[in-house]
């Protein structure tokens, strides 16, 4: 039984691939920084999904070729990107009108904590991390469906899907789905509890239970 314990569960790219299964043809999607960005590499062939960048672009193309790099063309993570024939540009105020106005179908975000009631904390560790919330608060307030992709436990082993967030919130009662390296939780509406709907390969429901403090339905 001394085999590779690490092989259990999903890696970062597999978590992103799982999130990509929630995409639908014609969706307009905003992807956060980190694992969520990897969702772009997992869009099913033949499906049209338009990616929004909150700094003012619809239709994010791939990273540019070295000789096509343009300092005026970056994503919200300040990385150089390219445009597509269908791309459009607009101001930050128009961009967030789109986000706040409920026109974006789906967003995939990272998180430090998610509570059993769907609260999310991902922008601040008091006294430690002071970078700011960027567009995260607007996204969770305005986008139709909110998916969180995060490690099930912190580096020190603490559960991240918990009864009540301990960190300053990004949004209250906003998360629809949680994808971790161990499992997927979902809820049909913001009044219902989360339900464990899927286990990563080699992971048991008991293991998920033992590594989670949030209440959820099995």
């Amino acid at each position, binding site marked *: 039984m001394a085999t590779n314990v690490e092989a259990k569960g999903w890696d970062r790219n597999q978590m992103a691939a799982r999130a990509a299964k929630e995409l639908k043809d014609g969706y307009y999607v905003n992807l956060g920084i980190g694992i969520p960005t990897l969702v772009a590499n997992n869009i099913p062939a033949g499906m049209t999904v338009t990616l929004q*960048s*909150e*700094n*003012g*672009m619809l239709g994010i193309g*791939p*990273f*540019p*070729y*070295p000789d096509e*790099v*343009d*300092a*005026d*063309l*970056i*994503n919200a*993570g*300040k*990385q*150089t*990107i390219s*445009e597509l024939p269908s791309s459009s*540009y*607009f*101001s*930050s*105020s*128009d*961009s*967030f*009108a789109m*986000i*706040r106005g409920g026109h974006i179908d789906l967003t995939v975000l990272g998180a430090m904590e998610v509570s059993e009631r769907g*609260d999310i904390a991902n922008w601040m560790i008091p006294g430690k991390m*002071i*970078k*700011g*919330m*960027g*567009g*995260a*608060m*607007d996204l969770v*307030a*305005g986008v139709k469906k909110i998916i969180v992709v995060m490690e099930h436990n912190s580096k020190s082993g603490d559960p991240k899907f918990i009864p009540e967030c301990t960190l*300053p*919130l*990004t*949004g*209250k*009662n906003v998360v629809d789905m949680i994808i971790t390296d161990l499992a997927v939780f979902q809820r049909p509406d913001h009044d219902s509890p989360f339900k464990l709907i899927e286990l990563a390969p080699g992971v048991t429901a008991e293991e998920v239970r033992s590594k989670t403090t949030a209440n959820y339905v099995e």
Partner: protein
Amino acid sequence: MKIFPNAEAALEGLLFDGMTIAAGGFGLCGIPERLIDAIQANGVKELTIASNNAGIDNEGLGRLLRTRQVKKMISSYVGENKEFERQYLAGELEVEFCPQGTLAERMRAGGAGIPGFYTKTGVGTVVAEGKELKEFDGETYVLERGIRADLSIIKGWKADESGNLVFRKTARNFNQPAATSGKVCVAEVEEIVPVGSLDPDCIHVPSIYVKRLILGAPYDKKIEFLTTREREPA
């Protein structure tokens, strides 16, 4: 004439200690760098600056932080800036964290004669603390104030001699709402073209907003994170 010979001349008579400035740009993309340099050289201090970011160390607004000219930043994201972090943690710099979309709308609203607006963004978080909440159709919204700045500084791509201005790609970002937020907007551009050269249907900032204009070129545009892909072999 709106066209001034340089940034220093364009800012003549507009700067005073304790003033509020709305600045365009996202990261280092589309930042009004000539105007920032001129504000640094002027030495005006106790500034409140509404800008999505605070530059990075010694680039963009980071320069004004280094010279301690900034009293307060109103921003959504201030990472990648050691001097900012140091001053903030030491209590030397005041920061009002404002969600990115709320900040853009505060500038837009301020410039559009709307002193406040309700938004769902930030409800239930520290951002809404101490602010008026109101229910509309069963949802709770928070009252946010428009920003009417003393001065707007923006960077455009091209402007005609009358001040009609266009941006290029994602360099538009906060420059458009910032342009309208100030009582006076000073713009720097890469190229000034004769009246009639820009398509009137494709103007991003109509001339009414651009009170003073300078040619800022040549620009050495900085990239924060260079990401590329390989060309497939032919």
